[in-house]
């Protein structure tokens, strides 16, 4: 978590995004260095994944909360912006209904459900992107941390949370498009989404948001607050005996992390153009955890690195060798946990000090 690593990462993210955008816009399509729009969107998708990874790293790496449901916050942010985009379609939908999205017309709904009101307003939708994941995290975290649910138990109930949301969003009655989710978006803030310039702008926005997220996260973990947080991670009961309230620290960072994941989800939906319930699937949340593990837990920069590298690998494998992708991902999980407990950044740093910043070894099982 050194200053230079963060700076390097910021420069790479912002510079890389700017470079891709410029190469896409400024060069004609047949120029050798031209970057296709597909690649721009792909890069934007990786950056929104990186936001999720930073969010996961914030709670897992610095508060010891292994959330297996963080993709739920990501998806909720995505649904919030997706609802705004749906309302923006207006009469350009298949059924041409000015108020109701296509799937509601298809389901023979006569009225917009109450929770869809206000989403035609961009500002309201953006507030919701922050508020919905944040509120869910607040309620869930308040319940969980107050009763000192921790460790594996917390992981399991976060997984149950995202699983419950997955099932709920699959229902047509929920009013979120059921199985198909929300898609077929036309424009955002009045700008058509399909334009190359919009894509480049979104990539740049993703890079900026990721940079801001990294800076906030870094500020939080290097502050006095962050020191207590790390103490909570390493020995929660000792911190409590020293007079701190671990649940308050955990709750704050959990909510912050959920909001960050939600922003990532919103940018993801803007660039991918679809949000459906499969984003809630527990496998997605666990995959986000492995990005962090690959890059290096508790480093923030490592989370960005891991998210981009693993997703590059995923894009390559699912395109070239689809049979092997799950083997590769599975092997990655196993090898990283067995051989690379500090991730790629840990490998690069070659342990500058004696002890790694991992959690204190817990007692052997069943003793």
């Amino acid at each position, binding site marked *: 978590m050194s200053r230079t690593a963060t700076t390097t990462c910021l420069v790479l993210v912002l510079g890389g995004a700017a470079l891709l955008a410029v190469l896409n816009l400024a060069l004609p399509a047949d120029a050798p260095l031209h970057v296709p729009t597909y690649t721009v969107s792909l890069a934007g998708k990786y950056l929104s994944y990186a936001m999720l990874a930073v969010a996961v790293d914030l709670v897992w790496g610095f508060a010891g909360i*292994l959330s*297996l449901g963080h993709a739920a916050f990501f998806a909720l942010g995505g649904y919030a912006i997706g609802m705004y985009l749906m309302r923006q379609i207006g009469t350009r939908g298949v059924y041409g209904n000015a108020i109701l999205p296509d799937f509601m017309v298809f389901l023979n709904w006569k009225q917009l459900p109450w929770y869809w009101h206000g989403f035609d307003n961009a500002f309201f939708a953006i507030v919701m992107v922050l508020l919905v994941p944040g509120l869910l995290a607040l309620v*869930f975290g308040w*319940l*969980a941390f*107050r*009763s*000192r*649910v921790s*460790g*594996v*138990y917390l*992981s*399991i*109930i976060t*997984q*149950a*949370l995202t*699983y*419950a949301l997955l*099932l*709920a969003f*699959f*229902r047509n009655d929920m009013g979120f498009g059921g199985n198909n989710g929300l898609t077929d978006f036309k424009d955002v803030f009045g700008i058509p989404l399909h334009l190359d310039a919009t894509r480049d702008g979104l990539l740049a926005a993703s890079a900026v948001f990721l940079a801001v997220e990294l800076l906030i996260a870094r500020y939080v973990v290097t502050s006095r607050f962050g020191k207590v947080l790390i103490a909570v991670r390493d020995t929660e009961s000792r911190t409590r005996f020293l007079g701190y309230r671990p649940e308050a620290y955990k709750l704050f960072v959990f909510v912050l992390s959920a909001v960050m994941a939600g922003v990532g989800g919103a940018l993801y939906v803007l660039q991918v153009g679809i949000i459906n319930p499969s984003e809630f699937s*527990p496998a997605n949340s*666990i995959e986000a*955890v*492995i990005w962090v*593990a690959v890059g290096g837990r508790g480093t923030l920069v490592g989370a960005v690195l891991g998210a981009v590298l693993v997703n590059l690998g995923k894009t390559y494998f699912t395109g070239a060798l689809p*049979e092997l*992708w*799950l*083997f590769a*991902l*599975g*092997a*990655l*999980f*196993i090898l*990283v*946990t*067995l051989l690379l*407990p500090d991730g790629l950044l840990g490998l690069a740093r070659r342990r500058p000090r004696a002890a790694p910043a991992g959690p204190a*070894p*817990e*007692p*052997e*099982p*069943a*003793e």
Partner: protein
Amino acid sequence: MILLRVLLLLIAICPLAARADDDPFAGLAGGYEDIRRAVDALALSGNPHAEPAVAALQAGTLFVAPDRSLWIRQDGTLTNARTGDPGTPDGDLKRVRVNNAVRRSIEAAMGALTLFSHDPARRMKAAADLFAQHDAAALPALDRALANEQDPAVRTALQQARAAALLSAGTAPVPDRLAAIAVLRARGDLDASNLLASLSGQPPAVAAAASAAVTAIARVQQLWALVQAVFYGLSLGSVLLLAAAGLAITFGVMGVINMAHGEMVMLGAYTTFVVQQVIATSLPALSGVGVLLAVPAAFLVAGAVGIAIERLLIRFLYGRPLETLLATWGLSLALQQAVRSIFGASNRNVTTPGWMSGAAEWGGLTITFNRLYIIVFAVLVLVALMAVLRFTALGLQMRAVTQNRRMAAAMGIRTPWIDALTFGLGSGVAGMAGVALSQIDNVSPNLGQGYIIDSFMVVVFGGVGNLWGTLVSALTLGIVNKFLEPLAGAVLAKILVLVLLILFIQRKPRGMFPLKGRAVEA
């Protein structure tokens, strides 16, 4: 016995009954109109030979001899239609012909005639058909059938059919109708209720009795629905129990988070498929018990894989539960893909042996046999698991290692070996669960994934390290789920259960039956 007396009275006053003494067969040798009348007469005659004769007429195997005697040809032999004796008629036989009017009469007659069949099952069916038709015209035949009926079950069915016909006739005296309503009320199913509800133009006393009976039947039906929901709940609970029993060992006793547990279940299901294929090709005689042979096979396969996992992966991660979780998740992905590469992504067909399929009805309760066997199997597995932990040397050593690893090692127990065997046991039980699940679920590479979250919830809800807790928790969750389903729908019920569980874990983080003492402070 008022009813019986009423019936006897009815028989006595029934004008059609008198014709039974004439030769009802005579008309069959005449013209179409004679044949039609004869069929009608035969239908109500109660003559034991009437049914074969009309059936033969319908099938076109009834012949008339020049002496007007009637013969039924069946499989090349001739029998006298009047007496049922075999014989040889003189002269050429002529087929008895039918026209559409006769055919209609035959069809009406067959329903009543089977009431006098020798086969109780056929009489039962005829009574049920007449109940469904509740046609007043069938009353005389029903009365005659009742007078001769010895079989108590058929008798009840006939009385119900008679009651239905009587109520539909709308001419019977009020006490008879009340008696009929009582009979239908005792029957107590939806058909009876519908019939009672559809009555109209009845005297006030009868209408009141009918509506009271409808209410009573509805109450009984509700009770049955409740019992049925409990059965479905037990069935779901037993599935959860099977899926979670292995996890209760690996997670509950050893504290290992095995996210590949669902894949052990999946391997068990695929083992069942392989065993079935092997038996089908090389030992077809054993096809009925293939499922039983698959149980030990699945235990061994999944157990061996479990031991391999413990030796190669998990033992390096003891004390790091979150890392174990990630590594075993990775393993589960690889196992799924491996099975997908070997067996293909589509569902594999595991057949259910004959003795496991079918269903029994008991009152308003329908019990499907495969569900019943799975409940029994789940209980057996749990009992066996408890017995192993309690009465075998391995179980003793497992418990010793669980309670105090170092002391157990000092007593000469090879703790790493016990770890491997314990993990193998838990995985093997998961494999056996796979055999059961292969009977009710799709055998696909994703089979296990659907159960992993539920299994963890069951174990955590019941209290980690407590097999009884797992049992109570699985059955509770199953029954709660099935009780919520009619109220909220299947998916919403599952969501509600998950939310309730999440809230419950907030209240009692160690489950319903937490282990007491210092061991829990992990």
